[in-house]
């Protein structure tokens, strides 16, 4: 167990090192930081001075060392576009994105899991087929299109919900929330649904296919033969066994939440980290882009580590030392 953990940790560190290298090279090869930061009338002497004081004339390994050290402390430099510290910008926008992501995740789980279980248990019913068809459409429609359609329906035609922005924000200490105002609550509905839709259909289809596979297994037959009521068989035995791959997938889903948050935030003008990143890409604001790269990589590495460890804990088969495993079910 310890060897496993150590190996994974070492791999994680190696990945972060490579990512940091990539982020660093982004600075080196993409555009010229000095030109980006000063106006056009800066003299050559001024630029040289700036270059020297930024440490851009140091040898490359030294620059990389400084870069890595600063990154580890959370200092990602100053944004070209906003002229403010990148870390401040990110922290400012984090509440917006986090509230949206968490709302969407809860929505997706609340609706996706029961739907998956239902369509897995009653796969030939009409409602099941209906849900499956809707889910196929959910996967095929791009997120931004769903967002736009929702805006068109609920904001333009019906006028029930706002079409952009976060509504009124209430400050609690350092955190700005939009849950405490009516306009804020109204504003989060459409973006959260948009973000949740893809996850929801994904989770639902996954749980369904896992349930179908597990229900075919022998131990389910034996449980029924023993006379266990359907409820015990379905939830006690079948559902528990579907959880193992579902854990990985939830880990993956957290990742895709970030990606789709970028799109959703853009469609709804939601002032979160995703929108910040996209604007940075559009104007080639390297500090923000490289900060995002490092943060995302860190996030994924941590998620993968946690998922791996959870796997180890949840699936007893992985803990069996003997190769034969005795044929027992997990």
């Amino acid at each position, binding site marked *: 167990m310890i060897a496993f953990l150590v190996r994974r940790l070492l791999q994680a560190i190696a990945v972060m090192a490579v990512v940091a290298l990539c982020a660093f090279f982004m600075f080196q090869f993409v555009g010229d930081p000095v030109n980006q930061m000063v106006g056009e009338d800066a003299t050559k002497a001024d630029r040289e001075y700036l270059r020297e004081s930024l440490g851009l004339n140091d040898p490359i390994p030294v620059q990389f060392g400084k870069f890595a050290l600063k990154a580890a402390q959370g200092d990602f430099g100053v944004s070209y576009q906003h002229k403010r510290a990148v870390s401040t910008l990110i922290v400012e926008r984090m509440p917006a994105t986090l509230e949206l992501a968490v709302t969407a995740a809860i929505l997706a789980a609340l609706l996706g899991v029961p739907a998956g279980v239902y369509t897995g248990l009653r796969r030939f019913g009409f409602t099941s087929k209906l849900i499956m068809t809707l889910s196929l459409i959910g996967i095929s429609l791009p997120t931004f*299109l769903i967002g736009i359609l929702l805006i068109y329906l609920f904001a333009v035609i019906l006028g029930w919900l706002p079409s952009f922005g976060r509504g009124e924000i209430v400050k609690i200490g350092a955190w700005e929330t939009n849950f405490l105002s009516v306009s804020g609550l109204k504003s989060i509905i459409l973006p959260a649904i948009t973000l949740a839709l893809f996850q929801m259909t994904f989770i639902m289809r996954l749980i369904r296919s896992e349930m179908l596979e597990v229900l075919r297994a022998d131990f389910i037959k034996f449980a029924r033969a023993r006379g266990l009521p359907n409820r015990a068989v379905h939830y006690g035995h079948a559902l528990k066994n579907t959880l193992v791959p579902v854990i990985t997938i939830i880990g993956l889903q957290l990742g895709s939440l970030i990606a789709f948050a970028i799109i959703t935030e853009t469609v709804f003008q939601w002032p979160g980290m995703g929108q910040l990143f996209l604007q940075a*890409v559009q104007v080639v604001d390297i500090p923000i882009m490289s900060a995002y790269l490092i943060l995302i990589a860190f996030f994924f590495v941590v998620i993968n580590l946690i998922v791996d460890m959870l796997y180890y804990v949840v699936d007893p088969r992985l803990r069996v030392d003997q190769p034969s495993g005795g044929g027992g079910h997990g």
Partner: protein
Amino acid sequence: MGPPSVWHRIWDSDIFYSFRSSKITMVAAFLTALIFLLAIFAPLVAPHSPYDVATVDLMDAELPPAWEAEGDPRFLLGTDNLGRDLWSTILFGTRISLAVGFLSVIFGLVVGVSLGLVSGYVGGYVDSFIMRVAEIQLSIPGILIALLLAGTLRGVLSAEAYNDAIVYVLVLTIGTSIWPQFARTVRGSTLVERNKEYVLAARVIGLSRFSIMWRHVLPNVMGPVLVIATINLAIAILSEATLSFLGVGVPPTEPSLGTLINEGQNYLFSGLWWITIFPGMVLAVLVLAVNLLGDWLRDALNPKLR
């Protein structure tokens, strides 16, 4: 009666039977083929030429579809904000979307299958390294990878060069985001094939590793690749649409479906719904049809379900 012709054999085959018996799949295939043909022959089918600046008149801008009151019968689905006929622009835009989609899948396929073959056959450190990279990449959503790559390239090239080379940029970025799936599957199949007798026989004869991989193992591992390719075609088309929607894809001068939807979003509130809705519908139908085809293909070729 002589031996059955090729057509009879296809008609009676397992795969075609499962195709015939699923109406949805046949509809999906028909729709996909229809969209393909319309896109390929866009220059012949489109009533107007939307990229020819001489024929586009700003006075025609923002006209609603022909069946509405202020519509113009010349422009079936209305015009966009620059006065281009929407139907023609959609046709050409679908062309770009499909081209980028296909090329990205081919790129990802070539890279992924090659790396998978090498990884599975050669094994050792090469295998570990390639698979590690693939695993890491698989855990990050494709859009993010594509966005980061696109953003970096945008910084390296000037804005003009970027737009000129946009198709190559998109194919490169989207292809990079999908190769790991191909690599993983092919590696798995290669590991299985490697121990079979025909490979051992080839090695005994003294064929080079490259020759064995390319001419003997490869044909036997291509099956699942087809399914992955189809599913990834839908993903590639969606990725291109998303990147264009976000502004880092195809520029508005020769817009793809995603770019059109983005442009149209600005006019949604003024009531000009057609600029967004029609390209959106085409995109949705296209991706849905390709997804359905991929689903059917996966079930038809899945040995466990036979």
